[in-house]
């Protein structure tokens, strides 16, 4: 029995650790199985330095055709399960073919790694970075160990950040003018604005501001679009009259947002929209959707 178990279990344990693992910031990362684990956080152009420890199970020797570590940036499209597109792939050979009898540590270093895309866990797509250690063997399958890490890239505040201002309406029924102070917001930003009622001939019940995320994957006829509503924020209760202006102040920090991603490796895009919804007494909804850009600034 023990023999059998031993036959399927990998003959060694592999540990991957980062050199600055203790001091490095950890962020939550959702795994495939739904569990959230903490993962180390990097940004593009950082050196990724660490150590791989291979520890054979007690009393066994591990024969191998070489040990390597890869840094992979992968895009996984769920409808195309099993296919990963590696947009980044770096390899370091850690050991030449030979045998391992005891615990052995291999330091590694990827310096100034170009990681242009951020880790992302969407509805139909996942972008992830992993360190993959492979112990190649003959006749039997390779021993593989992966370590996820998270990449976030910071952008400076945009130099041009115009407000969004628009007048919309249904003829002779409802005319409003709304204004969001900016078109680009960072993740902890506040959306400030105003809705100005120019004409109200319908009996409104309330008004909400929604933040919607639109994730489109694939291309051409195989495009999949998934829209999620991340926030529903009631702006107004009751029916306004002509000339009334309603303030908007929506703090973005409580919501799980990401920066806007445009055409990531030609595989997917993630865009954000502000959806202003007016609901009348018969629960009819009138809305106007407006794209805005999210970006990430370096948190201090």
């Amino acid at each position, binding site marked *: 029995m023990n023999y059998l178990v031993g036959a399927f279990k990998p003959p060694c344990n592999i540990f991957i650790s980062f050199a600055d693992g203790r001091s490095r910031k950890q962020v939550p990362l959702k795994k495939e199985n739904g569990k959230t684990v903490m993962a180390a956080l990097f940004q593009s152009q950082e050196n990724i330095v660490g150590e791989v420890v291979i520890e054979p199970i007690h009393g066994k020797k591990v024969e191998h055709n070489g040990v390597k570590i890869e840094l992979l940036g992968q895009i996984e499209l769920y409808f195309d399960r099993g296919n990963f597109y590696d947009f980044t792939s770096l390899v370091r050979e850690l050991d030449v073919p030979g045998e391992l009898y005891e615990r052995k540590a291999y330091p590694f270093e990827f310096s100034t790694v170009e990681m242009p895309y951020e880790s992302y866990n969407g509805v139909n797509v996942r972008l992830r970075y992993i360190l993959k250690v492979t112990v190649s063997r003959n006749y039997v399958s390779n021993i593989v160990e992966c370590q996820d890490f998270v990449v976030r890239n910071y952008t400076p505040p945009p130099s041009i950040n115009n407000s969004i201002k628009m007048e919309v309406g249904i003829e002779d029924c409802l005319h409003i003018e709304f204004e969001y102070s900016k078109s680009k917001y960072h993740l902890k930003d506040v959306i400030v604005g105003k809705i100005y009622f120019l004409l109200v001939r319908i009996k409104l019940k*309330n008004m909400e501001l929604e933040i919607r995320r639109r994730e489109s994957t694939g291309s051409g006829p195989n495009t999949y679009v998934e829209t999620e509503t991340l*926030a*529903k*924020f*009631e*702006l*107004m*209760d*009751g*029916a*306004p*009259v002509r000339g*009334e*202006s*309603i*303030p908007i*102040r929506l*703090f973005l*920090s*409580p919501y799980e947002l990401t920066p806007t991603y445009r055409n990531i490796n030609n595989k997917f895009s993630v865009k954000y929209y502000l959806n202003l919804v007016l609901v009348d007494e018969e629960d009819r909804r009138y809305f106007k959707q407006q794209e805005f850009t999210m970006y990430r600034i370096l948190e201090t």
Partner: protein
Amino acid sequence: MLNGTEDEDKWLAEGIAGIQHYAFFMHRALDSNNLREALKYSAQMLSELRTSKLPPHKYYELYMRTFDELKILESFFKDDSKHGVSVVDLYELVQHAGNVLPRLYLLCTVGSIYIKSKEAPAKEVLKDLGEMCRGVQHPIRGLFLRSYLAQISRDKLPDIGSEYEGDADTVMDAVEFVLQNFTEMNKLWVRMQQHQGPGRVTEKQEKERSELQDLVGKNLHVLSQIEGVDLEMYKETVLPRVLEQVVNCKDDLAQYYLMDCIIQVFPDEYHLQTLETLLSACPQLQPTVDVKTVLSRLMDRLSNYAASSADVLPEFLQVEAFSKLSNVIGKVIEAQVDMAAVGAITLHVSLLTFTLRVHPDRLDYVDQVLGSCVKKLSNIPKLEDRRAMKQVVALLSAPLEKYNDIVTALTLSNYPRVMDHLDIGTNKVMAMVIIQSIMKNYSCISTADKVEVLFELIKGLIKDIDGADVDELDEEDFKEEQNSVARLIHMLYNDEPEEMLKIICIVRKHTMAGGPKRLPFTVSSLVFSALQLVRQLQGLEGDIVGEDVPVTPKKIFQLLTQIIDSLSAVPSPELALRLYLQCAEAANDCDLEHVAYEFFTQAFVLYEEEIADSKAQVTAIHLIIGTLQRMNVFGVENRDTLTHKATGYSARLLKKADQCRAVYACSHLFWIDDQDGIKDGERVLLCLKRALRIANAAQQMANAARGSSGPVTLFVEILNKYIYFFEKGNQQITSSAIEGLIELINTETQSDSTNPDSISDAFLASTLRYIQFQKQKGGVVGEKFESIKL
């Protein structure tokens, strides 16, 4: 309807249960210092306030419950050792709540702590709160939210002397904030109406709205409490802004309530100094607003203010309070086309009251008020509204009550013009009020002009007015009225005969128009008033004798003749006769023989031609005899004619007893017990004998008709006359004649056919006793009587 309230009660109970439920969890979170949970449950608790199902007073109940809970929450927020979050972060944190209503309640709660912490200028926080609260546009929910805001910010306004006042925060900001809140609340409040849509304004909705009025008015109260709101600021900022809102909201309920509120919460002094601004809003209000009540209250307050101290009066003059008020009333009436007459008149009454209290010395103001009222009334074809009438009466009575003197009112040129607009009944009532006022105050109306005006005023009583329904007149009321007029005539008096004569002429002119029903009441007053003048002239006569004296008794008597003559139209011969006799007597006193004779002639003519009733004749003849007896102005010839006539009439009375009595009364015409009076003993005896004959005849007639003689009373009466003249020394009356008469009476008494009569017996007995008494008295009289043998 019943189901409606039941449902509402159910919803309220559910709401309360919800609040209690979440409050319980909130308390638990607070006890364990769990901020996140506390925020979560408090937001859920506040969500109960999102209901639209409750009427205001029930919603208020929910509100009060959450209010108490929020107090507890506030004290938790205040203590950052418990939750470890700075107030600035807390201010952000509560804004994460997804629903606007709970979010804003929490924001206000934290906001109040934020101000207290002084980490940000009060003005900024207040401004932000006020601005954010716009998110609630539902009228009831919005009103309560803003009232919560007003409540928690009340003690945190950067008022003068407040700890929140600073370089950045001035009282101006405090005022600005409250004004802003007021404006928004009023908009919400007004919107409650518009929400229902036009034409569906039910009583219930009105009621619900008025339940909320105090929430709005509270802001004005807060404004009035801000120390820093001095007159200057009130004038420049507060009032114009509030009025702007009031005018622009175009809602009658709100306009009425708020105007009243302004008037009540701010000091009188401010009102006085900003009168122009305040009043200028009035004509701009909706036509259905009850402006009259608003203005009345304002004027009430101002007049109380004026009454409070004499020092403030100059201020009233300085700001020309009266002309401004008067002006605005005109404008309001103009603007409110549909205002009922009663409204316009009520306004005038208020203004008048104001004027009387503040400027009692300015009669021109009073007249001006009446004048503008006339102007208004003249646009109304006919005043039929009872209430309007009442107000006009009030309008007219006010000056009377104030001045206690009709004379003052008479100088008001517009007074009678107002009265013209009353209907006949009311006009009379008013006239009575005027007369009663005169009576009460014993006002003496002393010039002809005033009398003219007065009679113009009370003409409703003086003459029939066209269109009056005569049948409806109540006899008793009519008498009462006319008696009052009669009394009034006596109140018209002037020491100057010339003026007095004018007065009399005027009164005559008016009373003559009164028609047959009124004349009997008024003429006698007038006659006596004139006679009084005659007597007054008599007193003066010694001093003024001249050709060109304008007023002479003669003239007056001429006038009197005409006056009394008018009674013939009534006809009221008895009264006329009495008055002629009165005049004759007066003429007698003035030594005007011809005049007196003329009056007697008139009296006799009346007697002959008009007085047919035998009883009236008896009374009349006795009056004639009595008056004639006192006449001393007549020459022998005239006197003879008159006495002859009188005796003639006496003898021609119908009943024997009456004849007898009249005849023996005539005896006095020949014996004036005066120094140079006529003493014609023979004719006296003649009369008495004739009386005796008639008495005899009466006795026989009674015997013949009824088989028994009447009482001997007549005889005893004649006996008394005998004794009288005997005592006065009439030689023709002898003691034997008296004895004979007594004998006769005794015989008559003892005869079988005579019915015993205790009255005449007693009469006789006391007469005999008198003779006895005189005998015993001794002296000249005693001797004389001694000759009578009993």
